[in-house]
């Protein structure tokens, strides 16, 4: 465990070494969230007063602000990282290390997430009083615990799904285009673009059981206190089960793929 944490520490050292880069990130990390929120303000204005699909303007703003923290916990980077390692032959040095490549990649991403989400975190802390005054209950201990639980599952399941996609590089060599297409699809059905409540009921009743809803929609809704405890418990269980399935699948894909690894270069 300690070695994975040290990888963590190295990541921080790296981030501090390039101070300027870190500062720029701090300023621009929230640009896309702010733009999205502005769009929604415009949409609600033109719509007159009232709710859209049960979301008031405050709910909507809160959804995007909170999800700006949550969505960083989707480790799509795992897929791109595996694909790059395989294509460029850099997997070779990883194969020599006496650790789990998979675990070390997961913790690297976790470190990247925690440092990288700092700007969004600052934004949320700044806006909390405003949101609280507007009646959003982000500071409920139960909601925060649910957020944490869903997010722990989402970091793991997204890491699994994405690494399976990235491991396709053992067969296809170049998988970036495929992965980008999946990224758009996944973002849509995880509720990153739009809360899933905007989709037709029949569609929602299916996708809420898939692991993707846990990547943005479920943690955000739970954090905002918009789910019932029973529902949350059930969905946490479902997502834990998904992780078991994905883990098995990933082992199979890895086992078959690594035999084909060509280790180009060197």
């Amino acid at each position, binding site marked *: 465990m300690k070695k994975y944490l*040290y990888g963590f520490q190295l990541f921080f050292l*790296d981030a501090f070494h390039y101070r300027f880069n870190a500062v720029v990130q701090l300023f621009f990390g929230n640009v896309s969230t702010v733009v999205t929120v502005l769009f929604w303000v415009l949409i609600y204005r033109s719509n007159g007063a009232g709710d859209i699909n049960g979301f008031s303007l405050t709910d909507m703003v809160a959804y995007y602000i909170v999800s700006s923290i949550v969505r960083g916990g989707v480790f799509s980077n795992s897929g791109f990282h595996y694909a790059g390692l395989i294509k460029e032959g850099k997997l*070779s040095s990883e194969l*020599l290390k*006496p*650790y789990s490549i998979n675990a070390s990649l997961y913790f690297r991403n976790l470190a990247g997430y925690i440092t990288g989400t700092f700007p969004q975190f600052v934004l949320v802390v700044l806006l909390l009083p405003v949101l609280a005054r507007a009646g959003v209950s982000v500071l409920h201990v139960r909601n925060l615990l649910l957020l944490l639980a869903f997010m722990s599952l989402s970091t793991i399941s997204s890491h699994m799904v994405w690494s399976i996609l990235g491991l396709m590089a053992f067969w296809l060599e170049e998988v970036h285009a495929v992965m980008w297409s999946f990224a758009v699809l996944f973002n849509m059905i995880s509720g990153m673009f739009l809360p899933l409540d905007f989709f037709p009921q029949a569609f929602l009743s299916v996708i809420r059981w898939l692991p993707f809803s846990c990547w943005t929609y479920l943690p955000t809704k739970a954090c905002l206190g918009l789910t019932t405890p029973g529902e949350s418990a059930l969905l946490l269980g479902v997502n834990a089960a998904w992780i078991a399935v994905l883990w098995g699948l990933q082992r199979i894909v890895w086992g078959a793929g690594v035999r084909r690894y*060509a280790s180009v*270069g060197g």
Partner: protein
Amino acid sequence: MDEIISVRNVRKEFRIHERPEGLKNGIGDFFHRKYICRTAVRNVSFSIDRGEIVGLLGENGAGKTTMLKLLTGILFPTEGKVTVSGFTPTDRKKEFLKGISFVMGNRSEVNWDLPAMDTFRYQQLVYEVPEDMFRENLNLLSVLLEVQDLLKVPIRRLSLGERMKMELINSFLYSPRIVFLDEPTLGLDLKSQIAVRGFLKAYRREKNTTVIITSHYMDDIEETCDRVILLGRGEKIYDGSIGELKAPDQPFKEIILNLIKDEKGQ
């Protein structure tokens, strides 16, 4: 004798997609892929005892690097069996991986942004090296390689020769029982080449490590090795002690070149 490496009838094939020239052929290729098989290692067997220093020799493309990758578990053999200290390398057992080291002259293992010392500390954790052993090894290695005062400088700022020395320290820090070196002196100036050779000899005297080294600088092999395995187009064409090969009236380099030529003539 104490056999530590055993290679039995090993063959390694790479399947490569033959890429035609030009657009028209490229389009045709999109629909009808042509694959060719390239055999990098064919029917090779040998065995190496604990404490031996063996040079793998051969022209470019002879299969030296592929052989080392098979021995370290980076590549799966297409056929045959490789056993290294009782393990099948591709099983990636932790105990196996902690006992070997693979230095690739043309590929960097160390993090370029950090001072060497940080990389070494990470290596210490990954390989679970006790603190006193770490200090002792670091001290021994940095004295042998004469880099005591460079440990705090970011790797990026070091010269090629100094960087190779850091790679060597990084690879020897955990006292591996078997060391694989692929062209460790590649691109180094004469002074650094001599330093690396001197180091290998001194280190071996100190620790009785098994060493397999490839190089196309004959001097590397002649000076450091007890035994030579010569590969030609993937096949083993000579395997014997270096003493038997040496002749008083002919330079070592010429003897090797003649062996390769004889093989091609047949």
